């Protein structure tokens, strides 16, 4: 268009069409932008309605109980009193510590054990690998309630009832199957040639796993550890069945006893709800991108 010499008249006509075209594209762009805004508003409204129960809990935790009881959705005054009162109850920091210990140990153990298993399943072809994969997946398909009775009876016989150690062991089953599944999906994207090159250069298999694969796997490891932590942190059924001592109660059990004692103090109970749910929500927001994309592409098919 540029190289061909043209008459001034034609040039004028071209400028006009170009202007008309750009005017139309601007109008289209504006319409697109307006449409996008409307979609965003609709999405925001739907999410707000959907999350209303949780938003309500967060707001209520900053209101005096009397105000919550009086009804009304818009708070007239806010305070941190509920949180201050909550942490003055001795059982709450103790339960926080118990949950943190159980969840952290079981999450790290799940990640180490699952990484080893997922690595073998994705890198070695061996007789029985199908059986191993099936067995680990079966763990995911058996709901906790099915094995509750025999598991609790067995743990009692081994003297592991009413101990945080026993609860930690029981929590290992929550994370392993899904962790193996996710890590296998991630490992499939890391070319084995990288480790093989390291092995040719004199690295051992384990050395290659630690030095080459694990650094590449870091986002997946973070996601798996965080998710196992979340599963253990809020687990209720096993904790309820195994733990009876007040000093060994984890957060869900402590919240239940708090409610039984102070059910009139709504603000206190809601503040405890925030204390339990905020850490896992924050943790999840960090990992959600890698977790959600992997879960939905690999886990469902």
């Amino acid at each position, binding site marked *: 268009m540029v190289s061909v010499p043209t008459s001034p008249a034609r040039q004028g006509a071209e400028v006009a069409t170009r202007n008309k075209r750009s005017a139309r594209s601007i109008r289209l762009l504006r319409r697109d932008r307006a449409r*996008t805004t409307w*979609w*965003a508003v609709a*999405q*925001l409204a*739907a*999410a707000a309605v*959907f*999350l209303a*129960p*949780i938003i*309500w*809990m967060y707001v*209520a935790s900053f209101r005096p109980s009397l105000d919550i009881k009086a*009804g009304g*959705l818009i708070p007239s005054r806010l305070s941190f009193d509920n949180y201050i009162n909550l942490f003055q109850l001795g059982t709450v920091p103790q339960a926080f510590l118990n949950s943190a210990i159980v969840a952290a140990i079981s999450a790290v153990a799940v990640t180490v*054990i699952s990484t*080893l*298993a997922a*690595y*073998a399943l994705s890198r*070695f*072809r*061996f007789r029985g690998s199908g059986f191993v994969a099936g*067995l*680990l997946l*079966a*763990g995911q*398909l*058996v*709901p*906790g*309630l*099915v*094995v*509750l*009775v*025999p598991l609790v*009876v*067995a743990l009692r016989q081994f003297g592991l009832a009413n101990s945080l150690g026993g609860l930690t062991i029981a929590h*290992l*089953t929550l994370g392993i199957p899904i962790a193996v599944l996710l890590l296998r999906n991630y490992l499939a994207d890391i070319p084995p040639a990288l480790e093989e090159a390291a092995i040719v250069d004199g690295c*051992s*298999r384990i050395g290659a796993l630690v030095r080459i694969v694990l650094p590449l796997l870091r986002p997946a490891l973070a996601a798996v550890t965080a998710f196992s932590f979340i599963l253990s942190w809020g*687990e209720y059924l096993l904790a309820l*069945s195994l733990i009876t001592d007040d000093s060994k109660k984890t957060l*869900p059990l402590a*919240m239940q006893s708090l409610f039984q004692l102070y059910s009139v103090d709504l603000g206190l*109970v809601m503040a405890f*709800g925030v204390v*339990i*749910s905020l850490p*896992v*929500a924050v943790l*999840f927001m960090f990992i959600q991108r890698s977790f*959600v*994309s992997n879960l*939905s592409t690999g*886990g*469902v098919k």
Partner: protein
Amino acid sequence: MTTAALRSTTLGRSRRARGGTNPWYYVTPAMVIVGLLTIAPLFYGLYLSFTNWSLLHSQSPSLQGIDAYVAVLNDPNFWGNVARTVGWTIGTLIIEVVVAVPFALLLNRRTPITGTLTGLVMIPWITPFVVLAYAWLFLYDGTSGPLHGLLHALGLVGPASPLATPSTSLWSITLISGWKGIPFLTIALLASLKSIPEEVYEASAVDGANRFKGFWHITLPMLRPTLGAMCVVLGVQAFYSFDLVWILTQGGPGYSSTLLGVQLFQTFFNQASPGQAAALGTLMLLLAIVLVVPILRTTARRND
């Protein structure tokens, strides 16, 4: 590359000499955990179910045939609990599907806030049941609960909390159960929506299909495999529910919200009868298989 192939080469031999090429070293810890904590208890539970062991009568189990099964099946509340559990499972699934499908379609529109919102709507899914249960308990509260106020104004519930009323306790907890499952289904549906190429819609638009027809004839059939698989996963989860009901009503008032999971827990702890509880667990497993197999068959056939 197989281990057999490695062994035949010098490289393989040197690698083996350094250790770490036996895959069983890697998988054994996971196998031991899953074997001891999931597979072995399954068989131990089956054994216990044939003992009718009660802690009130003896310290250790001894085989007693099918006494425990007979006792469970003769329990006057058993079939009522089965019906409630099936109704609860179907209700939970209906809520999940009815909300998650439009929700996923809405979030499939790319806007600047889509990414953040998708993360935020996952929060009910990862929030512990105890926390959600108490939040909803107060939403349903008869004097100050905002949700109770709304439902009462609509004439759906009486002046008391719906949780305290036999006719409404089960469905008001079903609502919570469905709500908690929505994010998981939404994310799964979003992933399969993203895999539908835009050209398919363009082609159908050229052929004169409108938006609704596009949804009905393209989107929905494409989502069906995901919907089928997720309904099995979420259905099994709902079938084995315990936490929400136990925290909110303990199965009451009366037996109006007693699910099989609650009955199992009560048999085990309140009646101190591990034998009967194990028998109930086995019956639940059989019932779940009977319910799931037809769903798997239909989805498998549709995929062909």
